[in-house]
């Protein structure tokens, strides 16, 4: 017998009045959130970065994605100083005369957009396949999970590179740039679905054995209704955790691909592209071109990772 007082939480909870707001306010998640300074800082950093990215057009002093607004003579201005052309740059300017602060804001936008889209894509695909594998079992299950196993044993970056290469081979050159971001999302998404599939499958296998599913089957509820109304909502906890950590991975993966030069177009740089550009100036003294985007990328990935880590602990009742 466990030494944790049985049902104590339930008993206490049963005495509280209903109402979803109160319920949420008293939920374990929110409580554990308020108790974790790291989670709060991480959430704050994430929120700031996401908001800054979303509202970049309103916040950024310049629009680095509008080539016509650039003045090449602004190039290589150090942080907190003005260029020859008279423009002030808080975090300096890069080799094209783009404001580093603005490129970071707009670059985070690209990074986050790619990261979130790729994660959503991986989530949808992985969840669908995981549900199918877990609920159908048998041959479908072993085929899907075997593919997932193989894929998990290859680093995501290798798979993304392959997909990118194949896409380059298929898409005609004149359309490649327009589809670059889509290909990137596809490549990163396809390289990350397996985690979702595995998790959802595991949760599905547990849930489908539960009596409430049996109860639904007895009253003749259809297969898909059971999957989507009963099983799916109960797998969302772990999926949320994987999605958060997956988002951090996707952002890093996008940065790595862009760093390797197979990412987004250089005129619409993501954080990874900025780092690739800045790396050229590591030795020549223009440290700010590399430094600020790198710090932003690390902060973003770290904050999202911390959130995911906390969420994992918070959703795992045994760790509390």
């Amino acid at each position, binding site marked *: 017998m466990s*030494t944790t007082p049985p049902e*104590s939480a339930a008993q206490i909870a049963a005495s509280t009045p209903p109402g979803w707001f109160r319920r949420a306010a008293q939920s374990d998640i929110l409580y554990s959130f308020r*108790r974790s300074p790291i989670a709060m800082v991480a959430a704050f950093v994430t929120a700031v970065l996401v908001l800054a990215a979303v509202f970049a057009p309103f916040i950024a002093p310049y629009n680095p994605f509008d080539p016509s607004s650039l003045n090449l003579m602004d190039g290589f201005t150090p942080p907190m100083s003005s260029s020859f052309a008279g423009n002030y740059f808080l975090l300096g300017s890069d080799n094209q005369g783009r404001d580093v602060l603005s490129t970071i804001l707009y670059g985070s936008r690209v990074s986050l957009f790619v990261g979130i889209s790729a994660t959503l894509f991986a989530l949808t695909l992985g969840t669908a396949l995981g549900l199918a594998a877990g609920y159908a079992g048998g041959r479908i299950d072993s085929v899907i999970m075997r593919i997932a196993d193989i894929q998990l044993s290859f680093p995501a970056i290798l798979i993304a590179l392959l997909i990118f290469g194949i896409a380059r081979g298929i898409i005609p050159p004149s359309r490649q740039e327009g589809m670059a971001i889509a290909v990137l999302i596809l490549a990163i998404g396809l390289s990350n679905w397996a985690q979702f599939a595995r998790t959802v499958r595991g949760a599905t296998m547990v849930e489908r054995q539960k009596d409430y599913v049996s109860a639904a*089957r007895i009253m003749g509820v259809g297969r898909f209704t059971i999957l989507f109304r009963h099983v799916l909502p109960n797998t969302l906890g772990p999926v949320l955790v994987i999605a958060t950590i997956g988002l951090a991975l996707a952002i890093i993966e996008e940065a790595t691909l862009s760093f390797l030069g197979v990412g987004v177009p250089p005129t619409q740089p993501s954080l990874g592209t900025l780092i690739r550009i800045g790396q050229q100036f590591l030795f020549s003294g223009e440290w700010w071109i590399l430094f600020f985007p790198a710090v932003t990328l690390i902060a973003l990935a770290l904050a999202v990772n911390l959130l995911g880590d906390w969420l994992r602990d918070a959703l795992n009742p045994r760790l509390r």
Partner: protein
Amino acid sequence: MAAPLLSIRDLTVEFHLRRGIFTAVDGVSFDIAPGEILGVVGESGAGKSMTGSAIIGLIDRPGRISRGEILFQGKPIQNLPVEEMNRLRGKKIGMVFQDPLTSLNPLYTIGHQLVETIRRHLPMTQEQARERAIALLGEAGIPSPAERIDSYPHQFSGGMRQRVVISLALAAEPDLIIADEPTSALDVSVQAQIIKVLKRLCESRGAAVMLITHDMGVIAETANRMIVMNRGKIVETGSVGDVIKRPREDYTQRLIKAIPSIRDETIRHAVPAADRPLVEVDKLTCDFMLSKSTLDRLLGGARSKTIRAVNEVSFSIPKGSTYGLVGESGSGKSTCARMMVGLIRPTGGRVLLDGDDVWAPGAGSQKRRRRVQMIFQDPYASLNPRWMVGDIIAEPIRALKLASNRAEIEDRVADLLERVRLDPASMKKFPHEFSGGQRQRIAIARALSSQPEFIVCDEPTSALDVSVQAQVLELMRKLQDEYGLTYLLISHNLAVVRQMADNVGVLHGGVLVENGPVDQIFDDPQASYTRMLLDAVPDISRVN
């Protein structure tokens, strides 16, 4: 009375939870004399296990002993440093846990674990320790212990493992054994043997036993003295005979009254006569194929293993009556139930509902969905935690399209909640806001919502405390009268079946060994298996 072996004074164990302090053990005081068997009984949450853990120093965070003393052989042990406590554990105080399947490390042979424990506490060589281990296993009733000692835990059955666990607890000749629900995970027949082994071994060594259990019957048959606990406090202490036969406290009285006995004969309502029974089960059979992979089949020929879980079982249930199906784990009773409600397709035989085969496509299945419902054992797993109670109860109504109007559905749900004695406002809550007994009521309400005639109840009360069990059984009976329901009651608890059923079937290894009216089976069992089963059941009426 000699100086007590263990003396507990004002023991208090608190858990600092985020919504305040939860007092699991609240000012408990008692003694255990050397060689005595002390029974500790109580419902879940009574603090009995926590008391045991406190004595051996195994309370996990965030719990802690906040007050009181634990004197062992006169010396306080509640705050010993870890190393000293380690020397006490196993050597002076042994412990046996509930679940023998998880108590042993699966990666080591039982011999390794025994020798390790013996050599930790006794100055012995490897060989001596091994000999002692073999002797211990033999005493604990493990056949050919010299060979079995090198086996791994998973190679033993549950009962055998619990014998190994008892040997381990006794390996260094402790003076006190704390047995925390040592038989609750075992079948009745095995349970009786284990209790006997525990009692014999401790008596022969003069070791005292603190037997913690929720089953008053076990205590009645085993212990000398007993303590009744409730909500962290001791309610009543006394000799077993006194407490069971002449309970002084109100709580004890209610508790004992709630315990069904296989000797009770409850007066049942009259079952209306009918031409043909509502449910007929005809030579129902179920085979499970242990599937082999293609490669195995290639390597090992075409033979694949089949297990016959249910073997040509036939019985019938008249409308408005209750049929009890009893058996130990693995007897096939749940498989039977699942075939009857449409969850597992039978390999052979038929289940007729009002003359229609429930597995026949079309009318049969349609009828089944509407008229058959099921109540499950675990009230935590049988309700979707993400759904509101109202939606859970309304699910059959919506699935079977019995009503479409929102207001109408809501009315029906409210009505059902009232009928299972719950506040209609509960429909806006989630399952986790309810206790186990309340959840089982919700499950019953869901089963009733499609207005079925036949409800299969698979161990509906075995996850509940006795007092809650009594309430739920009472409710089931009332509803049966109200709606004229027909029940199939599946249980390993013979007393519950005796209390509830009109007719009984006894399943053993997939075969229905006995089938007939309840009193006939219980009072004059024909099959030897049934007799063994009835003899093995610990019952409070057997108190000396």
